[in-house]
């Protein structure tokens, strides 16, 4: 009998706590609670930043044995320079093709140059079901939900939530991430989805044009969530589906969220 009473008390406690947490979730989700929620989340940001610094320092100390640190830094610098140059080449090629087609028809002029704010990555999402990162800039620095986040290599994701001094960024690898894109060589359009293994691209069939490996993927601007022309990655594999109106492709993303330590938030593009 004691066992049964104890069991029912535990169940009662479980149900009470569940109800309380569900109520807390519903209340904290409301628009009027956004300020308090952001402030509470920003409270942990200094601790996350300190822990990330400790991790970086531990990496450096461990790398002393074998001089891996110097080689890694040089490798990273070369990789960054290479990625930046590749991004610029792809952007220039895509822009040249687009301008040749649109210049006479629309008198369209694209302006480059955005207002950016630099931020350090101080943390990641708490579990494998989300692929988010935490940065050390927030509303006090002009960062707002919906703003686009990039690195020197290309598009990283979008600000999902912002507190006063920290913000949560949904990366393209998040399973809920969706980006409208186009391919630089073929001009085909599609939708890019996040996932645990690779970025998946669903490309619409067009007569006479096919997706090919090595084609670069850029944001199309369709939908207004991202500006047009941001580099995402390269087509790695293609799965042709004759019984469907679209083909599937895997995209080799230019960014690796677990190794990104520094990002840029585009402040002057407001998604529609």
């Amino acid at each position, binding site marked *: 009998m004691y066992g049964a009473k104890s*069991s029912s008390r*535990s*169940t009662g*406690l*479980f149900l009470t*706590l*569940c109800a309380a*947490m*569900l*109520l*807390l*979730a*519903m209340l*904290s*989700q409301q628009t009027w609670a956004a300020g308090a*929620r952001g402030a*509470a*989340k920003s*409270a*942990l940001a200094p*601790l*996350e930043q300190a*822990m*990330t610094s400790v*991790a970086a320092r531990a990496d450096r100390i461990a790398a002393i044995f074998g001089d891996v640190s110097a080689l890694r830094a040089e490798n990273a610098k070369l990789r960054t320079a290479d990625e930046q140059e590749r991004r610029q080449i792809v952007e220039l090629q895509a822009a040249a093709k687009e301008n040749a087609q649109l210049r006479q028809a629309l008198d369209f002029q694209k302006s480059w140059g955005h207002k950016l704010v630099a931020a350090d990555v*101080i*943390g*990641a*999402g*708490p*579990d*494998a*079901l*989300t692929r*988010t990162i*935490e940065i050390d800039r927030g509303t006090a620095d002009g960062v707002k939900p919906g703003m686009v986040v990039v690195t020197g290599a290309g598009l990283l994701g979008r600000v*999902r*939530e912002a507190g006063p001094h920290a913000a*949560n960024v*949904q990366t393209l690898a998040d*399973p*809920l991430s969706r980006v409208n894109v186009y391919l630089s060589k073929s001009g085909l359009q599609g939708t890019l989805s996040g*996932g*645990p*293994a690779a970025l998946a691209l669903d490309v619409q069939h067009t007569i006479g044009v096919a997706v090919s490996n090595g084609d670069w993927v850029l944001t199309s601007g369709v939908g207004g969530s991202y500006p047009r022309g941001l580099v995402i990655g390269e087509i790695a594999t293609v799965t042709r589906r004759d019984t469907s109106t679209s083909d599937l492709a895997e995209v080799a993303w230019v960014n690796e*969220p*677990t190794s990104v330590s520094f990002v840029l938030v585009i402040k002057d593009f407001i998604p529609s």
Partner: protein
Amino acid sequence: MLLALALVQVTWASRLSIAGAFPNLVLIAVVGITWMQGVRAGLLWGCVGGVLLDLTASGPVGPHALALLSAAYVTSLWARNLERPNAAHAALTAGAGTVVYSVTLVLTDGLLGTPAMDAAVVAQLTFAAAIYNAVLTPFAIEAIRRLRALVPDPEPA
């Protein structure tokens, strides 16, 4: 201790990713506490740990706490019916707890209006995470046992 584990989880744990999953240190700790100290302690620390994880994630505060509460309760149901608990049972409860945790998170997100994830992706990530957490939990329980041995029991009044 849970604050430290939550911070380590969001700063270091993602570097240990295998098949898209990385260890959920707070979940492992809650399962371990439930094993060692009973369901009440597991539920209360699950609440605390869950709120800490919610503060590091986007979205409302509460879903991760709800998920950890469910995992702790399932662990207590399993542990209660064992005559001879051992490391294998601890690992299995961690795996089951991970599945319950993930399902609760997805259901709660659905209830709160968040877009649903692809079921195949959730299944893949949950399976990988369940194995990861199952492997680490027996070591975590041993660590909790040794930590408790270091702290002297308070003398009865």
